[in-house]
């Protein structure tokens, strides 16, 4: 059961192209719009109940900023406190190291299980981090079968598909599509299509695995430095299954997941559920520390992952990207995401957070079109529970992309940059600006067409600007600019008409 072609920022098409393709899929657009409408509505309701919502956001932002400032200290504390109670902490600089580590740990666990239980299988709880490093493919390549246990991830896995949303990964699928998938992959020819029947089918399909498979891999929502504890936030119960029944648990977590103290959860466990699914509290939160006698796994490993996060940290203006608690509220409110869905972003992190996180994790060598996948409307910033100023980071990244693309002689092969430099030169002088305006009026004459009212419009522009006129008209430049009108009026002295009316 492979997970198909990974959403890989290194090979994904640039956003404008990927988005244009997604836009052709009317099923996807309808599903995405419906899903995000629903979550937005729920979020608005539960947030409006909280008179201290803004104070929670401010605290959330402060906690996360403080954490990054002392990240090395907190990671050391976490490691020490986790290890003291029997957890084993590993560190991975990049995806390759992390994959190798996890595979080794799984193989050790399989060996420990002995000859009676030598099946090379693992249970998985949904984890964006494991998708970021394409862990499932690596496991399969090593002859280990991963079983996704989140309903949405199960749908994705059975369908050889890719997640399209942080919190609701299969929101691009409707019930008919899911039913077809389950009928085939679970061998249930009579399966109905109501959500209840589909959920029941998934429950039975997975339950046998939960009770049998002795190794599980998870991500983590939060790591608590003070206690060495891990916190997992979920809805379905599959997390609880994977965290308590297997004998070996391997948790993969980005170094940005750490929080200073247990008490800090009181802020984020209020803002995360309300932002992510519009609930006062999600059904299940699990917190544990290391290995507990008589409860849960006997072997517990944590793999701390960098994979570009320290690069993000080093960019002072952009490091707020790491504050993200993966709630997905920015995606639900983003007017761009709501048209294209997640796949267009070419990465497991999509929407506004994806547009800033993915290019940075790729050190701007890939996904360079993502910072431009935004109209800078600011809706994301408004809903972010930890107040990440996403528009500010987008503009900052755009500047970084431009500086790279215009370094040295590169600028000569970059028509956009040349046009921008020319425009800047024009704006720096009023004389040049007026000349450009006159030139523009002249140049547009062949393109002007009069509409039924006799007004001149342009419906077709050449080259780059053709993107506008493909779907929109452009009113032609008027014969007189404002400053020409002003100068005229000043020359003719003010008309009596204009100054007649007395103010109310």
């Amino acid at each position, binding site marked *: 059961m492979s997970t198909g072609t990974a959403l890989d920022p290194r090979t994904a098409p640039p*956003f404008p192209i990927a988005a244009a393709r997604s836009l052709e899929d009317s099923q996807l657009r309808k599903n995405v719009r419906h899903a995000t409408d629903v979550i937005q509505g729920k979020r608005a309701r539960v947030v409006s109940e909280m008179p201290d919502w803004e104070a929670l956001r401010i605290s959330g932002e402060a906690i996360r900023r403080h954490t990054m400032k002392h990240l090395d200290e907190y990671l050391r504390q976490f490691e020490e406190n986790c290890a003291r109670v029997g957890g084993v902490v590993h560190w991975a600089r990049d995806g390759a190291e992390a994959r190798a580590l996890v595979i080794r740990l799984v193989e050790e666990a399989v060996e420990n299980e002995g000859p009676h239980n030598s099946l090379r299988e693992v249970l998985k709880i949904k984890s964006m981090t494991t998708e970021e490093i394409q862990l499932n493919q690596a496991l399969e390549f090593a002859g280990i079968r991963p079983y996704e246990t989140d309903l949405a991830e199960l749908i994705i896995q059975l369908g050889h598909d890719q997640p399209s949303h942080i919190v609701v990964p299969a929101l691009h699928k409707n019930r008919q599509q899911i039913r077809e998938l389950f009928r085939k992959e679970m061998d249930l020819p009579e399966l109905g299509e109501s959500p209840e029947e589909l959920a029941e089918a998934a429950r039975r399909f997975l339950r046998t695995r939960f009770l049998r498979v002795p190794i599980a891999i998870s991500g983590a929502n939060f790591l608590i430095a003070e206690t060495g504890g891990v916190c997992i936030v979920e809805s379905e119960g599959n997390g609880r299954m994977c965290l308590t029944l297997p004998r070996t648990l391997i948790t993969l977590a980005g170094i940005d997941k750490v929080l200073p103290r247990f008490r800090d959860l009181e802020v984020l466990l209020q803002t995360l559920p309300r932002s992510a699914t519009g609930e006062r509290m999600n059904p299940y939160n699990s917190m544990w520390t290391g290995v507990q006698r008589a409860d849960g796994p006997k072997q517990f490993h944590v793999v701390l992952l960098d994979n570009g996060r320290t690069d993000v940290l080093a960019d002072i203006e952009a490091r707020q990207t790491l504050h993200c608690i993966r709630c997905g509220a920015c995606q639900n409110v983003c*007017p*761009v995401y709501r048209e294209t869905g997640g796949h267009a972003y070419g990465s497991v992190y999509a929407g506004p957070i994806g547009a800033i996180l993915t290019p940075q994790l790729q050190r701007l060598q890939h996904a360079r079109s993502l910072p431009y996948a935004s*109209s800078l409307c*600011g809706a994301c910033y408004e809903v972010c529970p930890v107040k990440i100023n996403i528009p500010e980071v987008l503009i900052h990244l755009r500047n970084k992309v*431009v500086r790279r693309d215009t370094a040295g002689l590169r600028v000569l092969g970059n028509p956009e940059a040349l046009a*921008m430099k020319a425009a*800047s030169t024009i*704006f720096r002088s009023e004389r040049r600006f007026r000349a450009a305006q006159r030139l523009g009026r002249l140049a547009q004459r062949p393109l002007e067409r009069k509409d039924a009212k006799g007004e001149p419009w342009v419906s077709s522009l050449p080259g780059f600007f053709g993107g506008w006129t493909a779907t929109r008209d452009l009113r032609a430049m008027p014969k007189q600019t404002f400053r020409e009108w002003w100068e005229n009026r000043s020359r003719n002295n003010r008309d009596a008409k204009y100054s007649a*009316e007395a103010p109310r």
Partner: protein
Amino acid sequence: MRIALFITCYNDTLFPETGIAVVRVLERLGHEVEFPAGQTCCGQMHYNTGYQDEALPLLPRFVQQFRSAEAVVVPSSSCVAMMREHYPAMARRLEQAGGHDGLSGDVESLLGRIYEFSELLTRRLGLSDVGAYFPHRVAYHPSCHGLRSLGLGDGPLSLLRSVRGIELADLRDAEECCGFGGTFAIKNAAVSSAMLSEKSRAVLDTGAEICTATDNSCLMQINGALHRKRTGVRTMHLAEILACTQAYKNAEGPGGGFP
């Protein structure tokens, strides 16, 4: 009051009737309007597209043009947002590079006197009724910069509600972006158009004759679709509606005006 008008590069070139309307409204209210002749552009397009170095030189120019103004009015909330959000940092950069001592102070002082057009009326002048008459059904689209960066709130609507004869329609999903986003409209034309189709559908569903906003960038985008589809629904900047009175129906002006 003597109010300096920063017309903005795109209004000057494409929407002069908006500037004319601003002048009309302010003079009707008894104020004197000035127009510093050397003005060009605030640098937003460059800055937001990533060309910060190219935007930098436009700041000292702007400060020099407007430093002595009692108040500055700008009929474009995105340009005012640009100034409030980025000019301070840009000024610091220029000071560090050398040759612009005191620029940060100048910027701070000037920012306190710059108003988007509806802000000038509602916050600086404390008005909601400016004596306008416009007996038509109108839908108001809150531009993202006005809504979120400037926090214009109910300001523009309070001005519209006081217009005699007007019928204000409720715009569905009003706070959703129209899809313009500056260079986004070209660089991501397909998505921009998809966002626009949601917005234009919402506008058409109101049955309004006119869609208005505080920004011609949004209106250019919205009108782009409304006109292409020959819907008969037009766009007008807020200032142009407020400029209409019983006596004056905006018949003049290079932009054509309302029949």
